[in-house]
C-alpha cells in the first residue's frame, strides 16, 4: 500500500511538475495544430472570396435585371437567366456558412428555401405590399423565387415575356422581380461587409474549444449543411426517402428543369473543397478539417479518416454524375438511381458525424457528462 501511494505520489508530482515547465523537451513539432491557420484559411481564402464573388454576381444580376425590366425582350431574359444561374452556382459555395451577420439576418433562409411558394409570391405581387425579410416570406424570395419568376410564370418564353409586358400584372411582376433581386444583393453586401470588417478578426481569433468557438460552430454548420442542405434537400427529399412517396416537385430549380444536377454537384464540390481547405479562387490548400484530422492521426495512430472521407465524397460524386440533368426526370423515370446517390451521400454523413467529430472531440454542451 505504501508502495502504491508512493507511486501515486510520484506520478502526481511528476504531472504537477511538468505542467509548469518542460516545454522545450521534444522540439518544435509539439506546437500542436494551429487552429488559427485553419480559421484564417477558411476566412481569407474561402469564405470572403466566395462572398465577394457572389456579391459581384448579384451586382451583375441586378444590372441585367434593370436591363430586363427596362426592356423585357427575349435577349434580355436570356442574359438575366444566365446571370441568375451563374450567381446560383456561386451560392452553392456559401450556403454552409451561417455565422456572423448571416446568422443575425437569417440570410440563408432568405436566399434559398425551396420549393418556393407560388401562392405567397402571387399574393405578394397582387397586394404590392410585402416585407420580403419577414420569415413568412422565406419561401417567396431568393433564388427559388427567381427560378419561378424567370422560368415558371408561364409555359413558353413568349408567355413569360408577356407577363412582364402586356399582362395586366406586368408592372407588379417587374416590381417584385426587382425587389427580390435587390433584397438578395443588399443582404449579401451586408454579410460581406461584416466579414471584411470586424467579423473576420473575431472569427479567426476564436480558437477555443467551446460550443460557441469558431471551429466548433463551423464544424456543426458544415455537417448540418451537408446533411440537410445537400444530402436531404437536393437528393433525399425529392427521392422520397423521408416520405411515403417521391416528391419530385421539391427539387432545386424546379422551374428551370435543367440544372438540379449542376447545382447538386456544385454543392458537393463546395463541401469537399472546404473539407480539404482548398482556396475558392485557386488550387492552393491550407489549414482544414483534413489537415486537422491528419495532425490528430499523428497522435492517435488511427485510421486515415480524411482519406476515407475524400474517397466517399468521390464515390458520391460518381453516383450524382450519372443522374439526369433534371432530377424531376430522374425521380419519375428511375428513382432507384436517386436513392443510390442518397445512400452514397449518407455514407459520408457517418464518417463526418462520427469519425471526424470523434477524432476532433468537438463537443456540444447539452448537459453534464459523467465524471470520476
Amino acid at each position: 500500500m505504501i508502495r502504491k501511494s508512493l507511486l501515486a505520489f510520484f506520478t502526481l508530482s511528476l504531472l504537477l511538475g511538468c505542467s509548469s515547465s518542460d516545454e522545450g523537451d521534444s522540439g518544435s513539432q509539439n506546437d500542436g495544430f494551429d487552429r488559427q491557420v485553419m480559421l484564417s484559411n477558411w476566412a481569407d481564402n474561402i469564405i470572403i472570396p466566395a462572398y465577394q464573388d457572389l456579391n459581384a454576381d448579384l451586382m451583375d444580376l441586378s444590372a441585367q435585371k434593370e436591363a430586363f425590366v427596362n426592356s423585357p425582350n427575349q435577349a434580355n431574359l436570356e442574359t438575366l437567366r444566365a446571370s441568375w444561374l451563374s450567381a446560383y452556382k456561386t451560392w452553392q459555395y456559401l450556403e454552409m456558412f451561417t455565422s456572423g451577420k448571416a446568422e443575425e439576418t437569417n440570410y440563408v433562409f432568405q436566399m434559398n428555401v425551396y420549393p418556393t411558394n407560388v401562392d405567397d409570391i402571387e399574393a405578394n405581387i397582387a397586394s404590392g405590399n410585402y416585407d420580403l425579410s419577414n420569415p413568412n416570406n422565406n419561401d417567396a424570395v431568393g433564388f427559388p423565387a427567381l427560378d419561378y419568376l424567370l422560368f415558371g410564370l408561364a409555359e413558353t418564353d413568349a408567355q413569360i415575356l408577356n407577363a412582364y409586358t402586356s399582362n395586366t400584372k406586368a408592372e407588379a411582376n417587374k416590381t417584385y422581380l426587382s425587389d427580390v433581386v435587390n433584397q438578395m444583393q443588399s443582404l449579401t453586401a451586408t454579410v460581406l461587409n461584416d466579414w471584411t470588417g470586424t467579423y473576420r478578426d473575431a472569427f479567426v481569433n476564436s480558437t477555443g474549444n467551446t460550443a460557441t468557438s469558431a471551429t466548433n460552430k463551423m464544424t456543426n454548420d458544415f455537417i448540418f449543411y451537408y446533411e440537410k442542405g445537400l444530402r436531404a434537400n437536393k437528393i433525399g427529399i425529392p427521392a422520397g426517402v423521408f416520405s411515403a412517396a417521391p416528391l419530385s416537385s421539391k427539387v432545386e430549380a424546379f422551374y428551370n428543369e435543367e440544372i438540379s444536377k449542376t447545382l447538386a454537384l456544385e454543392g458537393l464540390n463546395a463541401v469537399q473543397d472546404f473539407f480539404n481547405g482548398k482556396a475558392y479562387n485557386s488550387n492552393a490548400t491550407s489549414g482544414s478539417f483534413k489537415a486537422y484530422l491528419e495532425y490528430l492521426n499523428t497522435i492517435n495512430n488511427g485510421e486515415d479518416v480524411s482519406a476515407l472521407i475524400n474517397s466517399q465524397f468521390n464515390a458520391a460524386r460518381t453516383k450524382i454524375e450519372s443522374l439526369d440533368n433534371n432530377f424531376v426526370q430522374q425521380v419519375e423515370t428511375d428513382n432507384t438511381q436517386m436513392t443510390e446517390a442518397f445512400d452514397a451521400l449518407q455514407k459520408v454523413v457517418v464518417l463526418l458525424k462520427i469519425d471526424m467529430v470523434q477524432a476532433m472531440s468537438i463537443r456540444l454542451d447539452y448537459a453534464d457528462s459523467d465524471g470520476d
Partner: protein
Amino acid sequence: MRHFTKESFFIMKFNLKTYFSKTTNAAPLAVFRIGFGLMMLVSIIRFWWHGWIETIYIQPTFHFKYYGFDWVSSLGAYNYVLFFICGLSALFIALGFKYRWAMLAFFLSFTYIELIDKTTYLNHYYFITVLSFLMLFLPANAKFSIDNLLRKKSYDTIPRWCIDSIKLLLAMVYFYAGLAKINSDWLFRAMPLKIWLPSKYDLPFIGNSLMQQEWFHFAMSWSGMFYDLTIPFLLLYKRTRLFAFALVVFFHIFTRVLFPIGMFPYIMIVATLVFFDASVHEKIIAFIKRLLKPFRSHFSEPKLVSNYSIANQKWILPVLTVFLAFQMLFPFRYAFYKDELFWTEEGFRLSWRVMLMEKMGLTTFKIVDAKTGDYFYVDNSDFLTNFQVKQMSFQPDFILEYAHYLGDHFKEQGHKNIQVFVESYVALNGRLSQQYVNPEVDLYQEKESFKRKNWILPFKDEIKGL
C-alpha cells in the same frame, strides 16, 4: 477455501455482535448530513438555473425509460414542483429539520426525477440515489440539528456502523471505478483520454504543451486507475489520510477543469471528509456554531444524551446488509453476457463505470411496409431532442425502445404492415465506425429483456480486461 469450525463461527458471531454495539462520535455524520444537504440544494438550483428542467424533462415528447419503470412519467410543468420538493428537502436535510421525512422526500423525489428519462443517466446521480437510500436509515440528525432543538435532546455518540457504512459505500464507488479501468483500451491505448485531452488545447498553460503528449495520456490513464483503486485505503489509514485528501481535492478539481462534469467533483470532495477523525468534524461544527452565534441565543441548548440507540436496528441491519451486498455484486452482472461490454453495454450502467468510453453513433430508422416494400426514413429530430438523439444513437436499449415508439406512432397514423429497420453506425474509443445493429432485423418484433441482444452486430476488435 477456509473452512469455518464451529468455534471460529462463534468467535465471528461474537465479534459481529460487539462490532454492532460499538459506538462512535456523532459529529462526522452530522457534518456529512450538512454537506450532503447543501450540495444537493446547490445541484438542484444549478439544474434549474441552466434551464435543464425545461429542456430535459418538459420539452421532449418522448422519454426513454429504465427497463421495468415505464410507469414513471414526466409530470410536465409540475416537474418544477418535483424539483422544488427535492430542493426543499435537501435544505431540510442540511438543517436537520424533520430529518427522516426530509430524507424520504429527497430520496423519492430525486429517484423519481432520475427515472423519468434515462437519457440523463450519470453514475453520480445513481450514487446520490444509493447514498440517500442508505441515509434514510442513519441517525444523521443525532447531533447539531434543528431536530435536536425541537426534541431538546442531542446525542453525543451513535452506533459505529452508521459511519462505516457510508465509508464502505464511498470506498466501493472508487474501488469499482478503478477496477473498471483495468482494461486494454484504458491502460494500453490510453483511450479515451487520448481523444479527450488533445481537444483541451485552449486551457491556459498546459493546453498546448501537455495535452498533446502521448506520455501524458498514458500517465493520466495509469495514475487515474491507481488513484481509484488505492484512495479508499489511503483515506482509511490514518497516516496517509491527509495526503489522500489532498489527492482527492487535486484529482477532482483537475477533472473538473478538464471535463464538463458539473457538481460531482465537489460532492466527492465534501463526502470524503467523512473519513476524518471526529475532532476535525467537531472543529467544523464549532466553526459553524460561531457563524450562527447571533441567532442561537433564542434557543436553549438541547440536553446532551450520551448514545443514540437505533430503535429498529434489528431489522435495519439485515436490510442494509442485503442492500450493500447487492451493491457489491450488481456491478458484476456483465459477466453473464458474453459480448464485449463496451460495445453492447449489457450490464454497463449502475456499475461505477465512468469515463471509460468515447462512443458516438449515427442511427437512422427506416419504416417499411412489409407487403409493398415501400419505405421511408425517419428524421429523428421530429421526435427527439438533440441530447436524446446523441444518447440514443449508440445505446442498444435506447435504439430498441425508440424503434417501438416509432412503430406505434406510425401505426397510429394509419400505416400498415409496419417493420422498423435500423441503419446504425457506432465508433468506440477512436476506432473507425462500424455498423452496429443488424440492418436485416425488424426491431419492431424484438422485445426488451435482460437476455442477450442478438441483433447487435459483433464488435470487430477486442478489449481485454475486467
